[in-house]
């Protein structure tokens, strides 16, 4: 049985998107070679595994953010939800902060995830049902989540291992397993989480009706309404998924780092959007792949890792992220203009 019988459903847009993906791979290789020429440790397996571990959260959140961006929406609250959920978990579980009570381990974990899911549902509800632009809705959520986090935790740092009273050792080792396990060949467990969610989101985006409809709704919402696609439900759910992935990433990072404090998300929020855009997604909706998003995250991780090896500080790294993001979008413009010209269509305007 030949596999050529059934080409992928998204084949049409592939030539251009494949070109983009190839370009991204090329860029990553070139940048990697440059770092290797400067620091021979860059391509060592230890460093590459560190690199992969460092991009795990970024990737996981970015896969979900891609679903949001495919719909032509944006979720600015993922960083804040990441912080809120990990901090909530710590406060609920360990006690302290401004909270007069604490919960047993499992209810605390469940409650933290529910808090994240609720935040996402709120963004989704505001966007899908009250028709508030997601930029504003999630900007509001960003402040709400950050404010709640700081209020509940009283801006203190939580470290389970040194907490008084110390949590049961079984609970501690659960988190150590979640974030600190070494798989065979010294592979950190974060690589497994990244691969797992990559698989799930790749299937949803490229092999299931979910991705098909995201593409349709995002590319032409009016036509989707006429075709009676469940637009509002999709809007609501992508924000919930986005928040859920931010929550999961927050808990995984809390497990790995072993502590959580204010502003734990750092630049994560903007990096997530940068990864999706570098990966070739259109902020107008209707275009973007999981592979591209992964590569976008890899590119950012390579930059951060390589620049750190070169001893360039975090502030200068931000500059590079800015250049790369803008450069990727310019490149995207140029290639898609070229593509349109080659097809010679009059649809360039649409």
């Amino acid at each position, binding site marked *: 049985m030949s596999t050529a019988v059934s080409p992928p459903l998204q084949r049409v847009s592939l030539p251009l998107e494949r070109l983009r993906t190839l370009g991204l791979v090329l860029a990553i290789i070139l940048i990697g070679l440059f770092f290797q020429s400067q620091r021979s440790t860059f391509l060592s397996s230890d460093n590459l595994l560190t690199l992969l571990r460092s991009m795990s959260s970024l990737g996981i959140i970015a896969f979900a953010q891609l679903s949001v961006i495919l719909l032509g929406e944006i979720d600015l609250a993922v960083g804040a939800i990441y912080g809120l959920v990990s901090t909530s978990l710590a406060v609920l579980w360990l006690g302290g902060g401004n909270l007069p009570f604490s919960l047993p381990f499992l209810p605390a974990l469940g409650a933290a995830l529910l808090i994240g899911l609720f935040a996402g549902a709120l963004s989704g509800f505001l966007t899908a049902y009250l028709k508030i632009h997601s930029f504003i809705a999630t900007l509001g959520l960003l402040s709400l989540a950050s404010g709640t986090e700081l209020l509940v935790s009283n801006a203190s740092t939580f470290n389970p291992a040194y907490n008084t009273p110390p949590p049961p050792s079984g609970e501690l080792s659960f988190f150590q397993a979640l974030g600190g396990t070494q798989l065979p060949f010294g592979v950190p467990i974060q690589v497994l989480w990244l691969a797992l969610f990559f698989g799930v989101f790749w299937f949803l985006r490229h092999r299931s009706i979910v991705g098909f409809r995201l593409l349709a709704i995002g590319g032409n919402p009016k036509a989707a*309404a006429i075709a009676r696609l469940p637009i509002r439900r999709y809007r609501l759910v992508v924000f919930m998924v986005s928040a859920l992935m931010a929550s999961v990433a927050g808990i995984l990072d809390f497990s790995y780092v072993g502590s959580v404090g204010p502003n734990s998300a750092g630049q994560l929020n903007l990096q997530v959007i940068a990864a999706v855009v570098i990966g070739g997604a259109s902020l107008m909706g209707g275009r973007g792949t999981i592979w591209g998003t992964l590569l976008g995250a890899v590119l950012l991780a390579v930059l951060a890792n390589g620049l750190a090896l070169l001893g360039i500080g975090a502030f200068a790294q931000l500059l590079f992220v800015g250049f790369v993001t803008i450069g990727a979008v310019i490149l995207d413009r140029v290639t898609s203009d070229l593509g349109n010209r080659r097809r010679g269509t009059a649809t360039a305007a649409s």
Partner: protein
Amino acid sequence: MTTTMEIRGVRKRFGNTQALAGVDLTLRGGEILGIAGPNGAGKSTLTKILCGEESMDSGEILVDGRPWKPGDVSDPIAIVHQEPQVWTNLTLEENLLVGNEGAWWRAPVAGDEQRRVLESLGVAHLADQPLERCTLAVRQRAEIARALVRSARFFLFDEPNSALTDEESHALFAFMHGLADQGYIVVFISHRLSEMVAHCHRVVVIRDGVLAATLTGDALTEPAIAVELVAGQTPRTERRVASRAADGDDSARVLTVTGWTDEPGSFRPLDLELRRGDVLAVVGVEGSGGRELVATLGGHRPATGDARLNGGQGAKALRERTSYLSADRQEMLFQHMSVGDNLVLRLGRREICGPFARLRRREIRSRSERMIERYAVRTSGPDQNLSALSGGNQQKVAIASAMATMPEVLVIEEPTRGVDIGSKAEIYTMLNEFAADGRAVVVFCTEAPEVFEVANRVMVLEGGRIVQELAVGDYDTVDAFAHALALLEGVETTQDRPANGRATLAGPSDSTEESS
């Protein structure tokens, strides 16, 4: 000073369709020229070329003997649209100043010229009103005023009064005559033949991309235009067998609505019954409520009243068991996706998915290939990008995708808008076969020949009211039918326009109503 414009040998091709096959036309100042033509005959292509929205493949346009390219900066041409292209967030006066602001260091100020133009249009008292608070008629004046300020010499009125009240229409026509009297070139396009006859000095009919006829003087009558519009249409070879179920048969009822109307009252509450095999054409000009009626029947526009469908009741059943297609292809197709994707997009998990919502691609592919073959969509295959298809083939894809869900009622606005003759026939066949399969089809139409080809019942709406129902079978020739329809469409129902109809939707008119 009178201006002349000579259009010489203008040709335009879209893919396989020769939209304009060499149009020669001389326009003279002081004359109101009507341009008529069936949909897809090249009329709208010509107007688009004149206003610079499309380029021409060959031919030339001379203004006062000098070559002129549409879209020139010193544009002498002004289009008055159904939907005026103005800035509703600015005041009437500010609208005249956009693009003509004066020195950068101070706020734009209207000069004598702007005031004179507003005065001459009778809207000077509204100069400082934001246009969002003005009626459609005032916005139209704003558009005309903008043209006058930049000394345009050529005015093209494209269905200008379709959403105006009768009073506003009369004022507009008076103004149109005024422009002509001052020596400007005035072109008037309308679906209402009676208005063409009443206001034009000369009417040209564009058919199949060429100037097919010119009517002036005594020859300029409604029946004459109606006959010219349908001339050359191939008479259908076989009369469709009357597939409609008998009236007494209750099980043959597909859709029944009673007391049916929409929120702004675009049309009066009405009762309607569709039976298996019915193809109902709703006919009416813009503002008649016909388009709105059709959208409510397709479940695309909220409505009140009782709806009973085969196996269901109410708005939910209507949405689930009908398919709707709008008049705008951009609005109902996914240009960024493939032909195959577009064909199956309306289908749900049950039809195209396996476990875990996985798309069954092989089945999707063979399904879309079958549809492509059955409806003769000219494409290289399901993987081809939809945007590469011609308008007619895109339309076939849109209709096929709407049929794929097997709705009880298929609702289509203007099924052959911008479609070449060949595809038109194929689309009529598609619709007829679908109805013959024991379902019902509702189309909103503006063209008599189309109605004649596709429908067995015709409902004519004017001013939100059903003027008459016709049975197409009562007419032997398309000419006779077109004549009958033209007479009905021309009916002016001054008293019966609904108070909240489109005409006054433009804003709270009480504060800014024209004094005239």
